[in-house]
């Protein structure tokens, strides 16, 4: 019998409509929330977001923007397993012209540029190539931007602009080898079927250094958790860049261009740049620092079964569990603190589904007789990097990975 008070699930962090709370306010009530909203815990607000089931191949999502779609995964989903279901995987598009019909038999991906032989690969060609599969976290560069202080402009995500899936496809290296990369190649640029609404606006393209593109892990995925990708997650083919932020994971990938000079396109040279400092951290108002394209992810960890401001019973043993990821390597340790970071205890790690995957963890805390518990969780990755205790700041709201804190009230 769980000692957790029922109220532990009736979140303040995502206060639901009164009716949903009265109905129990638990994850099982998802369909009843369809015409409802959530309140995200964003400092200074606005907090309220509609919940929506209106998007194709998607169940309940937090509506950040309708067009181009920005859909956040309700945080409760991350408590349900190590892999994020396709139908609740977050969605982020830059431009509004996105195909809504795709004939898979007519779809092709070009491989061109600084290569021996220009290719146009059909999906049949790609399905006939050697398969690769790996689990990897896909996280928006601006995940948790809404938690930045001072606040910054941009998509005001809480922590749900991330997800973990098992990706199946072919190695980019194999695709490049079929075309034959010429000597002098320095980068590979990726483009998808989405387009700007207005002529002359910068088409969304990203590139990787040639050695990264040929590392054997960067892949073209046609399946996600054993199913074809939802259109909103990049059907029929998506670039997977394990350990790197989602901006590189080009959706509806149909063009691969090998470059013999550094990519000067807007989305590499101007946008998605970070301060070249630890944690991409600068002071508000600071200028004059060097910038680089955003790149590898950093370790993060989250409690998934208990919400901020939940109530626990005095003296109770409270199970605490969650997810962690190492960034661009595995998780070596997850620790929790029940005294606001003075003492730490190691959590038990769940099964290892790959170094780029979420890793589940579990632990427990004993509630005191009165007062509050400030719970913290921190991950250390296999490179020895640990989450910092102070939040980073930059004007784009990128790369938050501070230790998260949760307050529990004892009753």
């Amino acid at each position, binding site marked *: 019998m769980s000692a957790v008070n029922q109220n532990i699930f009736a979140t303040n962090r995502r206060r639901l409509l009164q009716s949903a709370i009265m109905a129990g306010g638990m994850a099982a009530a998802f369909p009843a929330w369809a015409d409802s909203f959530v309140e995200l815990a964003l400092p*200074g607000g606005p907090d309220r977001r509609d919940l929506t089931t209106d998007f*194709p191949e998607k169940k309940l999502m937090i509506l950040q923007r309708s067009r181009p779609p920005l859909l956040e995964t309700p945080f409760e989903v991350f408590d349900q397993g190590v892999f994020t279901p396709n139908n609740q995987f977050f969605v982020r598009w830059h431009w509004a012209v996105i195909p809504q019909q795709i004939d898979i038999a007519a779809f092709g991906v070009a491989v061109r540029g600084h290569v021996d032989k220009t290719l146009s690969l059909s999906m049949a060609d790609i399905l006939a190539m050697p398969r690769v599969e790996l689990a990897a976290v896909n996280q928006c560069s601006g995940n948790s931007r809404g938690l930045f202080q001072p606040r*910054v*402009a941009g998509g*005001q995500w809480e922590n749900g602009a991330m997800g973990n899936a098992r990706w199946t496809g072919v190695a980019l290296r194999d695709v490049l080898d079929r075309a034959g990369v010429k000597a002098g190649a320095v980068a590979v640029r990726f483009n998808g079927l989405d*387009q700007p*609404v207005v002529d002359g606006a910068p088409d969304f393209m990203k590139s990787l250094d040639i050695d990264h593109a040929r590392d054997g892990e960067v892949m073209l995925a046609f399946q996600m958790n054993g199913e074809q990708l939802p259109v909103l997650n990049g059907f029929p083919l998506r670039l997977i860049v394990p350990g790197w932020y989602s901006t590189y994971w080009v959706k509806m990938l149909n063009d691969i261009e090998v470059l013999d000079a550094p990519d000067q396109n807007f989305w590499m040279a101007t946008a998605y740049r970070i301060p070249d400092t630890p944690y991409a951290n600068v002071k508000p108002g600071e200028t004059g620092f060097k910038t680089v394209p955003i790149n590898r992810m950093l370790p993060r960890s989250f409690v998934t079964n208990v919400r901020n401001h939940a109530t626990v019973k005095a003296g109770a043993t409270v199970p605490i569990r969650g997810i962690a990821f190492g960034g661009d390597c595995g998780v070596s340790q997850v620790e929790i603190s029940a005294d606001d970071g003075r003492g730490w205890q190691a959590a038990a790690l769940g099964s290892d589904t790959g170094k780029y995957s979420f890793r589940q963890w579990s632990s427990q805390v004993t509630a005191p007789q009165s007062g509050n518990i400030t719970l913290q969780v921190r991950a250390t990755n296999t490179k020895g990097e640990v989450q910092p205790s102070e939040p980073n700041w930059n004007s784009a709201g990128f790369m938050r990975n501070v230790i998260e804190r949760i307050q529990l009230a004892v009753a």
Partner: protein
Amino acid sequence: MVLLARPLSRRAAVAGACLLSFVGAAVRPSLAAEPAPSAPSTVSGAGVTLHSLNVEFPDPGRMFPGDSKADAINNNCLACHSAGMVLTQPALSRAEWQSEVEKMRSTYKAPVEESDVPAIVDYLVALKDRK
């Protein structure tokens, strides 16, 4: 300038695109207008079958509220993006909003008439008061 009189539907989005063409910008037609394949096709190989897709995205929803004060933002901004994310921004300063609007015009080539910029920025600055 013509005003959009009702919540932006997919048709109204096209109308919005036409509106923009009055100010001299070429706006791409939606790819959704292409005819759907008559029968869903599939491609198979080594145990995987992929199915053609034909989906429809929902209406982009509400316009910016606020009667005539919202005319400039409704006329200039909804062709490229819906209102929702703008309305959920934190309280940004006038300088920050000015820079956002300038980014839309110069970097993202939004065909926003210069004479409309002050009214758009005024509207955005006032958002913080309508909690």
